């Protein structure tokens, strides 16, 4: 998919910080302020969700659920002290992980696959069937390959990679978001990079042999 830069909002909104936009939306019900927030963050939030579930329909549902919660719960649960986007990402992350775990349970219970060596949702589910064909076409080859490798990582490592690379989220925030210590978050990142490096090397070796 192509990144679409939007929308014709007044320039003054683009100069405002997230916190100011949130304030405008909450206190003055300024819908344009909310639209500006959405424009700023929609692609990264959606990319994160999509990269985790790798299914456009599911990603759409989770994205919409996330923003429904954001809109309805903002007055009750967001205190304007912390970063708004960290709060939104927490909602998106929780919704995504909930979905993945539900799917995992479903696959476990249904016994659709009995291969015990595969302990990750993505290992059990056929990746190719999960990815929308149109989406697959739109992704370029190397990016698709990269996504495939990332999909093979354990869920915890994949989460850290995505939060860091899509959102440039500091490890301290990743640790808070995923309810682990900062050292655990750093460790997961290290293992994720090591695992990815191995996958790249294996792929390189296979290609060399086939040539």
């Amino acid at each position, binding site marked *: *998919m*192509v*990144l*679409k830069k*939007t929308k014709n909002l007044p320039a003054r909104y683009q100069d405002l910080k997230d916190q100011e936009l949130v304030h405008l*939306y909450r206190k003055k*019900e300024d*819908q344009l302020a*909310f*639209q500006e927030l*959405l424009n700023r963050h*929609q*692609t*990264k939030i*959606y*990319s994160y969700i*999509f*990269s985790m579930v790798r299914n456009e329909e599911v*990603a*759409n549902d989770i*994205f*919409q659920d996330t*923003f*429904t919660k954001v*809109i*309805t719960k903002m007055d009750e649960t967001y205190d304007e002290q912390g970063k708004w986007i960290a709060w939104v990402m927490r909602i998106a992350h929780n919704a995504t992980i909930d979905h993945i775990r539900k799917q995992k349970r479903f696959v476990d219970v249904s016994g659709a696959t009995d291969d015990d060596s595969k302990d990750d949702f993505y290992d059990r589910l056929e990746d190719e069937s999960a990815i929308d064909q149109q*989406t697959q076409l739109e*992704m*370029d080859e*190397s*990016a698709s390959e*990269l*996504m495939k490798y*990332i999909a093979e990582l354990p869920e915890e490592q994949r989460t850290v*990679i995505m939060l*860091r*690379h*899509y959102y440039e989220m*500091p*490890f301290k925030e990743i640790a808070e978001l995923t309810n682990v210590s*900062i*050292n*655990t978050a*750093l*460790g997961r*990142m*290290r293992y994720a*990079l*090591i695992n*990815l*490096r191995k996958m*790249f090397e294996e792929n390189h070796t296979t290609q060399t042999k086939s040539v």
Partner: protein
Amino acid sequence: MNENDTDLIRYIYDEMDPTERMMFERKLERDENLLIEVETLKHTSGKLSDLPEVSPPDFLIRNIVQLSGSKGGSGFSFSYTLMAAMVLFTFSASYLMLDTENRFSFLGAFDNASQEQVDGVAKSSTGALPEMQPWVDYNEVLYLDQGSATASKQDSIFRQLQPSMGPVPGTMRDRFFNSDVVLTGSSN
């Protein structure tokens, strides 16, 4: 996970303060294996910058924008609902206060005449039906002792008193305790 492992990630992702960074770089100069690991992981991390960004479909954004507007709308109606509730509460409270004032002003006016009324009723009731003992509560309201009289006797007393007595106007008792016989005040 040892300190070097976590420091290595913090170094690659630029999360060290300048002092920590300098110390870690000194460590790298002394430890060739650590240097190789840093370079390898940096290279892998660099590949992740190619991660594709995916935009949500337009219809989804339109739905969300619409929802954000309806939240604003619901906030608007909520504030109006709140205002309406407050106005209703104010009116109810003032009505009740007015009602109470009427009641007490009535009782104030009644104060002077009440003793005569009660005496008169007592006299007439004792004359006609000696076993019926009317009594007066702290609000100076006259009650007939229903326990000691039959229904026919109550009726006859009621008919006897009716020309000179009227129901207490504007009291809560009128509305909520209609089954009681509450007679006081003079229509003359």
